């Protein structure tokens, strides 16, 4: 007893050794090592297949309820097979005729959440029809707030990230239910991922919303949407993709005479991220070719925005339509003063782009005929033409100032 007691006391100081000793004492003979029956991807696949069967045509109501319970647990998992499995399930549920009413929409909501919840992987849509049906139903039907937000978030994410502009152009996104529902949901008090998805959705549908010439909402609603956009711009972290989406929407609105007068100057602070915006962005191209935008920006008391915008136009001088070129020269003479500050501001876009292109050209040999090098050279040439034209205008302004 004494020996055992002292032994145990001593060994308690060294637990690992004690465990080893316990094994020596207790273990009689080795049996075998266990291995899992299968690896995780295989288990995931089997569960996905089983879920599909559960919502299939031969199922009972009890099975469906069990399936919904399982899907609720399964769909939040961020793994590729889960997203793919849920997409197949969503298509199955939307096409099914035996699933009806609330059960069908709940299954669709959970499955779509499984498809769209993960930022790192989202299967692309081959067809937006089912998503838009689900989207319209969700906007029309009153659910509990949390469920509604989750369903809307999934639908907006699917339309904004997994679909593309060309695909959505085939559908009418100006329907009253979509417009009103989107304005209502675009609130900073909603979950971050929801209004971020709406921002990207607006980017995808801006052509239909702001460029159709149709009044999709009254002035009050337009003001509300712009106010919400400005509020959210202040709160969101300005990553490159977010800045690009904001600018795309902003240019879409600025191009429209219905929307332009309501744009607050603080929304133009997003122009700081302009260099990240692809030059082929449709709303930007439209804005660039619209001489009214210059006048719209000129109406602000703070002239720095219009000067910055004119700098961008001078950069793209060669690509501008003649009437825009004429208006640009005219307004430049009126707005830009003879001081160095104004001239530096209006030249900033040309100088910045020139530096960027020159750095890029360093990757190529001077006589390279690679496609990228050729296009870079052509772009530099266009810049040079714009710079020479601007220089001529600025010299005129300076001499006028001196006289």
């Amino acid at each position, binding site marked *: 007893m004494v020996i055992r*007691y002292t032994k*145990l006391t001593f060994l308690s100081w060294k637990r690992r050794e004690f465990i080893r000793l316990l094994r020596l004492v207790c273990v009689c003979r080795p049996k075998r*090592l266990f291995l899992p029956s299968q690896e995780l991807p295989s288990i995931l696949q089997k569960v996905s297949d089983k879920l599909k069967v559960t919502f299939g045509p031969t199922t009972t109501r009890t099975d469906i309820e069990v399936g919904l319970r399982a899907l609720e647990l*399964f769909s*939040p998992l961020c793994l590729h097979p889960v997203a793919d499995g849920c997409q197949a399930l969503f298509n199955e549920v939307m096409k099914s005729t035996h699933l009806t009413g609330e059960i069908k929409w709940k299954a669709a909501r959970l499955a779509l959440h499984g498809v769209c919840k993960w930022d790192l992987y989202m299967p692309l849509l081959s067809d937006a029809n089912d998503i838009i049906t689900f989207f319209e139903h969700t906007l029309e039907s009153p659910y509990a707030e949390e469920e509604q937000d989750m369903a809307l978030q999934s639908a907006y994410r699917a339309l904004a990230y997994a679909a593309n502009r060309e695909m959505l152009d085939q559908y009418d996104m100006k329907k009253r239910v979509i417009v009103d529902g989107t304005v209502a949901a675009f609130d900073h008090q909603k979950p971050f991922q929801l209004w971020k998805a709406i921002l990207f959705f607006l980017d995808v549908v801006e052509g239909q919303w702001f460029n159709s010439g149709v009044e999709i909402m009254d002035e009050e609603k337009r003001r509300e949407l712009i106010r919400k956009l400005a509020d959210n711009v202040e709160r969101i972290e300005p990553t490159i993709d977010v800045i690009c989406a904001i600018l795309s929407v902003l240019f879409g609105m600025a191009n429209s005479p219905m929307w332009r007068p309501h744009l607050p100057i603080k929304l133009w602070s997003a122009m700081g991220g302009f260099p990240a915006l692809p030059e082929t962005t449709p709303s930007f191209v439209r804005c660039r070719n619209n001489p009214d935008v210059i006048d719209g920006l000129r109406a602000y008391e703070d002239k720095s925005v219009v000067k910055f915008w004119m700098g961008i136009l001078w950069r793209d001088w060669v690509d501008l339509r003649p009437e825009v070129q004429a208006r640009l020269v005219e307004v430049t003479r009126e707005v830009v003063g003879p001081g160095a500050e104004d001239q530096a501001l209006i030249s900033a876009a040309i100088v910045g782009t020139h530096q960027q292109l020159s750095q890029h050209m360093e990757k190529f040999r001077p006589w390279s005929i690679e496609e990228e090098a050729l296009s870079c050279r052509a772009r530099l040439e266009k810049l040079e033409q714009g710079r020479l034209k601007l220089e001529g205008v600025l010299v005129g302004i300076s001499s006028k100032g001196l006289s």
Partner: protein
Amino acid sequence: MALAVLSPFLLSQILAKTGQSFYAISGVVTVAFFILGFILAWGPALLHALVTKVFHPHTPPRTVRHLPPTPSPLPRQEVGSFSSAPGGGKTHDSTASLTVAPILNPVGVDYQGNLTDARRLAWMLERSPDSGTLSTILQFILEVLWTPDHLQDADSSNATLVRSYELLWEAFDNDYATRPSLLRGMRGQAFAAAKAFIHIFIQGDYTSDNSVVGALRDRHIPLGSSSSLKDDADLRSVVGIVDNLLGIRRPIQWAELRLTSSHRLWLSHILLYRAWYATKHGLRIPDDVTEFVKHSLSSDPRPRLAVVADCVLVVGLIIGHPLHEADLLVLEKT
């Protein structure tokens, strides 16, 4: 001990510098310090054992200090088939009725597939003198399979279950006026005992019909609401499960608990057993399991793949996908 080894060398250096005979003196000093080291290392334990033997020869084994009042004592006689002394004769000491004879009898299987002696384990748990040793034994319990298929000796299982419960309560103070609070320095024992209890309860397929469980339920006071656990998510989770197993229907707020990765792994594995037994008996999988799965699968960052595998297997069980026995035995699934 390190002092005993190093000191002669240091002393001999000093003595050599002062002109004394180096070898003779350093030899004597070395022996002296080895004896001193032995006394320091083993002395307290020997003294304590001596005092126990000489002055308190009839001191019963450690009993539960802070257990709530028990209207009826545990059904010790029901687990009494192994309540005999090593010689096999009945004991006269009622408090020792849960002791188990130290007979080498392989009846359990550990996760490496080794047969283990669960009865010996139960006996050691009963006789272990200090909380450090107890925690070590309790941790070892988790390495043994306590499923009825692997463990034919229900008595060892019952005794270990009850002892684990008692050890859990030993770590708490209950003054009847306030909620139970964790005693200082007893966190390790409480955690290990709660895990051991859950492990045996779930793997052993205990239900509320079992008389041992019934007795524990009658005297159980909820521990999960103890304010002393609010900063310890791992301990709160296991104590909450103990409450649930013993009939306290209070949902565990998994979203509020920031569990450690290793603990989540352990939980996912043992809860898979719980789900498996529920489906085996044709019952609905308990909500605490499904809530754990829901929280684990939706948590960001995603938990370890082994946890994901266990949770997906629970989802599979819900929709009637059969579970391979090997998946119950393997902890680190990928």
